[in-house]
Each structure stands twice: as C-alpha cells, then as structure tokens.
C-alpha cells in the first residue's frame, strides 16, 4: 500500500465511520488474529497477510527486521521440529518488498548450530531471498534488565534482537513435554543466552518474566505440520500431523491461545500461557478475540 493510498483509504474510512457514528469501525477493519487452514504453506501465509492488508502494515521502509523461526534441532522439515523453511523464505521476501533495509534470521540452537541451520533448510531457503542467516555469537548476548520480573531481574538477550526495529516471531506449533506446547512465547527462548536449562525450573514464572520484556511485532505460528508427541525435538514421523494451518496475530499470547485448539488443550492446562494472560501480556482480550477464519480447501 502506498502512502497516498493509505491516506485516501483512511480518509474514506474515517469519514465513513464518522457518518455512521461508530469511530471504532476504523480499527475493526483489521482483525486481531487470523486462522487460515486447508492450504499449502505459501497460500496460507498469503491469505493471512492479505487479511492484515499486507506486511507493510507491520514493516516500514528502512526497518531492520529480525525473523525468529524455530531452528532449534538437527531435524528435517518433515519431522516438524523446526519452522517450515518455505514460510520463512516467503516472509523474508515480503519484508524486502515492503522496503525493509535488512532481514536477519537466527536462533540459538539445541543441536550443533551448523547442522540445524542446514538440515532445517531454513538457511538455504532464506538466503535465496537475501536474508542474513547468521550464527549466534556468544559475545553478542547482553544482560538485559527485567524490571517486571518476579523471579528473574536480568537475563542475557541477543543484541541483534534487541536492536531490531521490527520482530517477526515464527514458531512451529509443537508438543512440549515440559511446558505442554511450544508456541510463540516458548520460541523466544531462542534469543535468550545463559543456562537456558535452568529456565525449566519454575518455567511458568521465568518464561513470562523474560518474554514480557521482549514481545515481538508480529507472531506467525506455522501449523502446516505440527508435532503431537515427543516434542520439542521429535524425530519420529508418526508423531507429526499435517494440519495445513497458519495462525497470525500481532499479539503473541493471543496467537498462542488460539493455537491450543490444535492440541485440544484448554488454557488452564498450559500454565505458562495462562500466566501470561493473568499478567496481561496479551494485547487483546482472549475471551472476546476477533478472529478472522479462512478455509482455503
């Protein structure tokens, strides 16, 4: 959308809403979240982005963008332990089309980083569209103060993440043996330094202590393939279910909340997401979430 078009549209919408006497309809043009199902990865993403009026509503010209997919494991895309590489590449393309100055991609991996970057295929796919797929460098973690934290008051966070203008969080929807699910909030562990294993004790408090301070611009949950059991590392193709779904929201907690439906879970069964809602980390009221549902099949 060009600036002129945007001004025109807002003028029309604005006057329109004034005439009808409901200024709120100006905002309701954009839903709070999108749930697209029944398609291949790229159509899913394009449909979802279309509902939000294109990525240019999130990314401005000259932005330094960070895309944070899940590249945590030395697994192939079919094993559904890492984010779908086609989706990541397409988001890179969209960001550059919207005028982003630079798109960086990284994740602090659990297995050997070179292997994860290669076998997830995210490195090769994203590089094709000009993304800078960089290995995590230890010296780039900076102690970050967490004034709202209950248990943690400080944690090392990756510098490039903190310095980015816009952040697109791209988790894959997975079962997780400890936290029940691994979604948008859990995916942000990939920018945390230090002894991450220790976050696992009192996980509910600690993950929210940190995430509250580093929430992204946009969250795109890849649920094309999801891991139903033995997450987060998986490794058994029988644990993978092809759901052909994608969830997108500017609010990570809302996106996570919706994604629980994929696993037939109630929020009361997933303490870390419940805690996030109790702490008010959600931008939207999750009980009255305005979700646009699209079925491509």
């Amino acid at each position, binding site marked *: 959308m060009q600036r002129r078009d945007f001004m025109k549209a807002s003028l029309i919408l604005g006057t329109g809403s004034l005439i009808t006497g409901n200024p709120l309809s100006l905002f309701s043009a954009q839903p709070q979240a999108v749930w697209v199902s029944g398609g291949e990865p790229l159509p899913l993403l394009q449909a979802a982005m279309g509902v939000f009026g294109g990525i240019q509503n999130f990314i401005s010209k000259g932005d330094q963008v960070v895309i944070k997919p899940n590249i945590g494991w*030395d697994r192939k895309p079919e094993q559904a332990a890492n984010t779908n590489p086609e989706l990541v590449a397409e988001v890179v393309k969209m960001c550059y089309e919207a005028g982003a100055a630079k798109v960086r991609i990284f994740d602090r991996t659990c*297995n050997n980083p*070179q292997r994860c970057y290669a076998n997830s295929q995210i490195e090769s796919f994203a590089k094709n569209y000009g993304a800078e797929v*960089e290995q995590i460098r230890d010296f780039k973690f900076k102690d970050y103060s967490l004034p709202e934290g209950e248990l943690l008051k400080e944690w090392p966070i990756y510098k490039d993440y903190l310095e980015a203008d816009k952040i697109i969080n791209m988790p894959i929807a997975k079962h997780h043996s*400890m936290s029940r699910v691994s979604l948008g909030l859990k995916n942000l562990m990939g920018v945390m330094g230090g002894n991450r294993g220790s976050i*696992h*004790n009192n996980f509910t408090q600690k993950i929210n202590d940190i995430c509250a301070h580093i929430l992204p611009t946009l969250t795109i949950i890849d649920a094309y393939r999801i891991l139903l059991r033995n997450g987060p*590392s998986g490794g058994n193709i029988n644990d993978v279910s092809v759901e052909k779904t994608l969830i997108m929201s500017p609010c990570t907690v809302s996106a996570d909340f919706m994604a629980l439906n994929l696993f037939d879970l109630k929020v009361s069964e997933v303490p870390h997401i419940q805690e996030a809602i109790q702490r008010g980390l959600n931008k939207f009221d999750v009980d009255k979430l305005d979700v646009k549902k699209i079925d491509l099949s």
Partner: protein
Amino acid sequence: MARTRRIVQLILLFSFFYLFLRARYPYETIISSDLYLRFSPLAPLFYFIDSLELPLFFWPALIILFATIFLGRFFCGWICPLGTSLDIIDRVFKVPSNKISEKWVKLRWIKFAIFFSAIILAIFSVHIWGYFDPLAIFMRFTTIIFYPLATFFLEGLLILGTKLPFLESISYTIFESFKNIIMPESQSYFLGVMGILALLLFIFGLEKLSKRFWCRYLCPAGAWLGLLSQFRFYERIVGDSCPICNKCQIECKMNAIPRGNVKETHKVECIECFNCGEKCPPNAKSITYRFRWKPYHSKPDYNRRQFLGTSLAGIASLGLLSIGYRHKTSSYQLIRPPGSLPEEEFLDRCIRCLACVRICASNGKCLHPAGVERGILELWTPVAVMREGYCEYNCNLCGQICPTDAILPLSLEIKQKTPMGLAYFDKDLCIPFERHEDCIVCEEHCPTPDKAIKFDVKEAILPDGNRRFVKYPYVVRELCIGCGICEEKCPLPNLPGVFITRENEKRLESIA
C-alpha cells in the same frame, strides 16, 4: 633443487592445513581429510604386523615405501609436515651447525631402537608406534594446540575490532565471513593440552641442540625409511673441483655427510633436501645430483648389541605395560566413539592422531584426548566426555575420518543404533527427584525416535504439606544409545543429574 623442495614443502604443509580445516561438518569425502595421515610410512607396516593384511587405503604410504627403496628418505625432506615445521623453526631461530652438534651423532641408534621395540611390542600385540608417528604427532599438535590457539587469537582480535566505534560494522562483516569460511566452529577447550604441549616443546625445543634433532635421532619413521634406502640410486656426486671447504658437511640438515670425507653420503640419514648443492661455493660448483646404478651399502648406526638391548627392553616394557593397575571403577568413563573396534583391537589400531577429536569439535564436541589415569596406553586415545559435549545424533564423521579404521566408518543408520554407553540418573542430584520440581531438559533433548528417557508423573508431597504433580524421568536401557546429550544439557551447575557410563556399549568387529 633446494628451492623446489622448499616450495613443495610449503605447498604440502598448506594442503595439510587445508585438509585439516575441511575436516568438519559438512564433510565431503571427495578428498578425504585423513589422506595425509595415510601417508605415514609406519602405518602399513604395523597394520600388516597386526592383521597380516595390506589394505589398499594405505596407498599413499605404499607408494612412498616403494619409491623410498630407490630414492631414499625423500619423504622426510619433502613431505613430512613435522619435518617442514622443524625446517621453519630452523629458519626463524638460530640453531647450531654440525660443528657444534657433532657430539649427538652417537644417538642415531635411538631411532632404530624405538622402531624395533615398537615392532617387538607389535608382534606381541601392543601397538605404541602411533605415539611416535610423525604425521600423527603433527595432527595432534594441530588439533589440540595450533588450531585452538589460532581460533582464540584471531577471534579475539576480530571481536575486539567490533568494539571500535568507527570500525564496528566492517569488523562484524569481517568476523562473519572469517567464521563462515575459515573457522565455523566455536572455540574448543580440550583436556590434556599440557601433555601434548610438553611433547611439542620437547620436539621443537630439541632444535636448540641440533637441526632436525627429532628426525636424526628419534623418529621411527625415519629409521624405517632409512633402512629401506639402501638401493637408492639418485645420488650426490662430488666432482674433483671440490676444494673440501666442508660447508656442505657443516650445514647438512641430517649430518649425513661424514666428517673428513665430504665425497660420501650416509644413505640411511640423507633426506635429499639438496641443501649441500646450494651451500657449495659458486666458484667450486662441484656437487651435482645424478641417477647412478652403483649400489653401495651405508651401514645403519645400530649394532647387534644395541639390537639385543632393544629387544630385551621391548619385552620388559611389554611386561610393564601389562602389570599396570586396571581401574575398574573409573573405566566407566572410558566412553569410545561410536563404531570403535573392541577395546584391545581399538588400542592396537588407534594411532592417537586425534583426527576424530578434531572433526568432533565441529559437531557434538564430546571427544577429547584421554589421559593416563586409567592406563598408559590410553594416553591420547579419543574418549567422550559428555558433560561438555555430546555425540551428535546425525553425525558419523569420526568413523569417516579415522585413517586406520580403529573407528569403523558406520553408515548413519547403523551409527544411530550403536550404543556408546548408557545413561543413569543420579537421584540425589536430579532436580525432580531432589526438589520435586519439573525439569526434564534431558527428555526434551533425547534424540532417539522412541525416546530413551521417559518420565512418570507422580504426586509429590512438599515440605509445607502441599501436593504437586511432578515429572520424574527414567532411562529405558534398550533404547538408550549413550549419546550423552542428556548429561551435557543437564542444567545443574556442576555434577550432572544424569550421566553416561560405558556400560551397554556395543563394539563392532567390522562394518558388515
């Protein structure tokens, strides 16, 4: 000729480092990185003693051995990377000429003694020659000292650059391309640096006594090649114009020109570096090199008495090596790479070159050179230390790179089903058992398709009387492959709550 030799030496040294750098993930075997190690002239001999077979993968060494019969010890002068590095040291530091170092000539027998006692021990199936193999030694130095040192300083320098206000962005760019192209893996921290450093200082320090001290007096590969060079017919001919200035004798790298008779060459010692021709004064120009079929015998400096002494010493050390205390408890930590031969054969075959340790450092980082705590023969053999690294589930590169197949080149599929050990929980330490709090980081990382670490959910009664459901992990022995990622990732700060033992390891005799 001397100049050509120097160029060849440098090219081969760089190709050694190039192959070394390529020994990492993703490993392409077009030029396999263990190629250089298979140049070792000792390897086929001792492999033959061990198994009475001459496998063709030793072709580089076999070519060298064959050529040595006619050409002499050209391997030492032209190819050996340890020899080249000693030559470089001789250029940088002042080293004594043969006038001063003449007194050490009587030590020449030591290299034969090392060589023959290694043979005697090998006949009784104790293989120690790898400790003295010059290629294995150089690989050891490069893996444990040169490369980690280079990483430390180069990385440090480039990171320092990123702190400079004006150079920040360009420094990052340089750093990234340096890391991506030359040193992708992070800094390695190895066990046993001091032992290998001591060997390095010993071999390089001996240059203060004479040029190529190691090659002249200690190297068993030199002894073996020397014994083979009796028929060499590429010779140094000293013409009648020779003014007998003794320059060639004084400057000879190997002291192979007898004092008082510059026209002769000691065939066993000469490494064909062609320095003598270069040193010959321009007005004399009396040294030429020619093919000449006129065999004569150069007697090795090794007499019958010394041979008998060596044999006795070899047999005595055979006994001494066998009566050492075998520590049953601590041997639980002796976890070998996946695909290792049964322990006895593994020790016979392994040349302690640490190529596996090098390639592991770019993957799971579990392999380290072992110390002598459990036995002298385990020194510098690869051992997996799981607290600082683990065996990468999708990696089988240690077997691919092993030059002697002490670690078999297993296919990934077989490697993933070959246990290296078995995990045990220490319930006094493990967080769920000890504090009744959820953790199960180990289960999360367990890589097997059917997880070897599973957990029970049980209700725990807390000290304050409250109740809570907690996940308690346990190991399924039949599924565990001992990869050690559970031990490495255990979030406890010091002692881990889960650890790998050697128990349940599966050793294979062959790939089939």
